[in-house]
């Protein structure tokens, strides 16, 4: 019996080593695609390093701790999914939030064995990462919070409980009712209590105090301020940064701590501002301007953003919950009492969120139309991750409103596997070609 256990663990070790090798390879390939850019802003280096730290290890497949975990050994780390977990509560309790929504093809292949076939790759990859417990992002988590958003995420909570402690956070699906708002606020009070219990007496007597909460709101607010500055800079025509780089920088927020990220983002924004002032651009003004909508690309799955820009389009805007939507809306407080701040946090994490797990979700159409105008969009690429029924569902409405505006929409259904890249390339190229012609025709009048 003893021999059998040894053999099994040996097998598991080899499996982990293979997985690590594959993950490192994919991540390095995705990063190389960014680093190849001759105009790569200096400020992007930091975000590329964050990704490299999180997803590539040394040659033996050992993953180093992301920088912010170093010297933070006595702080609790809380894993979060989706956008509805208030980071302010986590920071106020002295803990560190990390975003665990998975984007790795290798991890999604491991997850394939753990969930039904039609589950989306985000959930597959998240489960795959957790089950192997290899990279420190997942290893270091003391607890994982999962909001009840779509079906797959909800059921993922049950399966994840086999590997880690899971707290479910009940998010109402209908925003526009007094009852659901009250329920949501209650949920957040309960979450606050749980976080206080986790961080314990060692941290300011086990209570999230008014000052700490206020400071946390301001800290995340500063990150949001810089994220919105980037958002504004992406409106420039001709563009000052490729979308695949801007999206990566925002994505890195999930794997970094707010103050460090904010500092780096401020530097990047300053650099881009200078670029714009000097009239330096990375694309010709004829490049079709794309809004990337739908399911989120999550690093290392940089397949669609890279392909789009490789084929000559530029992603000037996105609505991804790992991108622009992530840090768009700030918490608005009036009085600085704990109650007032809790109400403000509850409002910020529920009301402006346009995740398609809400119904009705007319706000999302409104946001998309607004973006089309703000960013002078020529076409929309609608990314559907296989199994993501709710984003696919809303495509019907998106197509309808965009048709009225004469904005072409290309639906791309794919997962994390590289096998369909060549087919996607042809389809994307034809779309970009079509938009380019339309754009030049409009210019000529």
């Amino acid at each position, binding site marked *: 019996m003893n021999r059998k256990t040894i053999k099994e663990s040996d097998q598991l070790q080899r499996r982990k080593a293979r997985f690590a090798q594959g993950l490192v390879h994919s991540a390095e390939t995705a990063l190389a695609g960014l680093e190849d850019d001759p105009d790569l802003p200096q400020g992007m280096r930091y975000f590329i390093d964050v990704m490299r730290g999180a997803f590539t290890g040394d040659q033996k497949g050992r993953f180093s701790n992301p920088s912010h975990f170093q010297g933070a050994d006595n702080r609790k780390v809380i894993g979060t999914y989706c956008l509805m977990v208030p980071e302010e509560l986590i920071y106020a309790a002295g803990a560190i939030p990390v975003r665990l929504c998975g984007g790795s093809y290798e991890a999604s292949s491991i997850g394939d064995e753990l969930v039904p076939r039609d589950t989306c790759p985000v959930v597959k990859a998240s489960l795959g990462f957790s089950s192997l417990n290899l990279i420190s992002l997942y290893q270091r988590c003391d607890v994982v919070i999962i909001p009840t958003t779509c079906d797959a995420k909800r059921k993922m909570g049950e399966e994840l409980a086999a590997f880690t402690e899971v707290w479910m956070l009940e998010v109402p699906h209908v925003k526009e009712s007094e009852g659901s708002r009250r329920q949501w606020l209650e949920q957040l009070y309960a979450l606050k209590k749980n976080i206080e219990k986790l961080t314990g007496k060692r941290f300011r007597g086990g209570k999230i105090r008014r000052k700490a909460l206020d400071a946390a709101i301001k800290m995340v607010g500063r990150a949001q301020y810089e994220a919105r500055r980037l958002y504004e800079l992406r409106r420039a025509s001709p563009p000052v940064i490729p979308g695949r780089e801007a999206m990566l920088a925002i994505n890195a927020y999930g794997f970094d701590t707010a103050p460090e990220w904010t500092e780096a983002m401020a530097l990047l924004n300053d650099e881009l501002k200078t670029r714009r002032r000097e009239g330096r651009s990375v694309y010709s003004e004829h490049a079709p301007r794309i809004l990337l909508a739908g399911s989120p690309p999550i690093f290392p799955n940089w397949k669609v953003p890279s392909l789009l820009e490789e084929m000559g389009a530029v992603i000037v805007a996105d609505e991804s919950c790992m991108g622009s939507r992530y840090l768009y809306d700030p918490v608005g407080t009036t009085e600085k009492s704990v109650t007032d701040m809790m109400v403000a946090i509850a409002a910020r994490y529920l009301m402006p969120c346009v995740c398609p797990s809400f119904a009705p979700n007319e706000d999302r159409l409104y946001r998309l139309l607004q973006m089309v105008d703000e960013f002078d969009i020529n076409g929309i690429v609608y990314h559907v991750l296989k199994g993501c029924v709710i984003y696919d569902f809303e495509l019907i409405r998106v197509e309808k409103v965009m048709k009225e505006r004469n904005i*072409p929409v290309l639906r791309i259904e794919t997962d994390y596997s590289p096998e369909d890249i060549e*087919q996607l390339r*042809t*389809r994307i190229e*034809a*779309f970009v*070609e079509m938009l380019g*012609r339309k754009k030049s025709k409009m210019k000529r009048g």
Partner: protein
Amino acid sequence: MECYGGIDAGSTYIKAAIVNGNGGIQGCKVVPTGIDCRNTAREVFGELCDELGLSPSSIPSVISTGYGRRLIDFASKDVTEIKAHAAGGIRTAPAGKRIGTIIDIGGQDSKVIILDEDGETRNFAMNDKCAAGTGRFLEVLSRVLKVDVENLGPLSLEAKAPCRINSLCAVFAESEVISLLARGKDRADIIAGIHMSLAKRISGMAKRIGVESDVLMTGGGALNPGLVAALEDELMTDIHVAENPQLNGAIGAALIGGNSNGGRG
């Protein structure tokens, strides 16, 4: 008069076309792609030039399209199949017809292209995930039925009671056809059923993006009158078949070269 070349390097066949400055088709050629797309393309283009008494160096622009478009090293530019078929469709459509939709059934993919008033692509859909809805589907099944692909169409038009083929997957459809044969079903009925199944798949894609009349069919699939008839039934509209449907992409590519040169000069 100046001539322009187009190469459509498809998955199954390579097509070459040469047009003159007025858009008149000078000559065309089709050969199986084989394993070396680049050399096959070079050879077929050379042969076509010889036949027309042209020297390849006298042709100012050769534009490549199709699956292997980037492999054609002597091409001056490459364009996607969508653009090439749209350009070709306008030229190869029957005289006097204004084409709103092009349905192209190739060896490895099928596509539906919606054109605007100026003949530019307004929208398109592609089936490129699997053999269902492509010429490959017909090739696989013709082997089981021991019928040459060219004879599928005429045979199916003799069908009295078409069978139903329910599987869209080429592999499953193959076993379905084998069991129909084992049950002693008529070959013509089976083939008609295959065409109907293919037509359903393609019309589903076409209806999703919205069919606009007139409809033009291109690609090797348009050479099959049984498939054209099945699609007409499914879409409930008349379908025009392009002149030289299989060459439509190559002709379109050649025309694009002619237009851009003409525009400059």
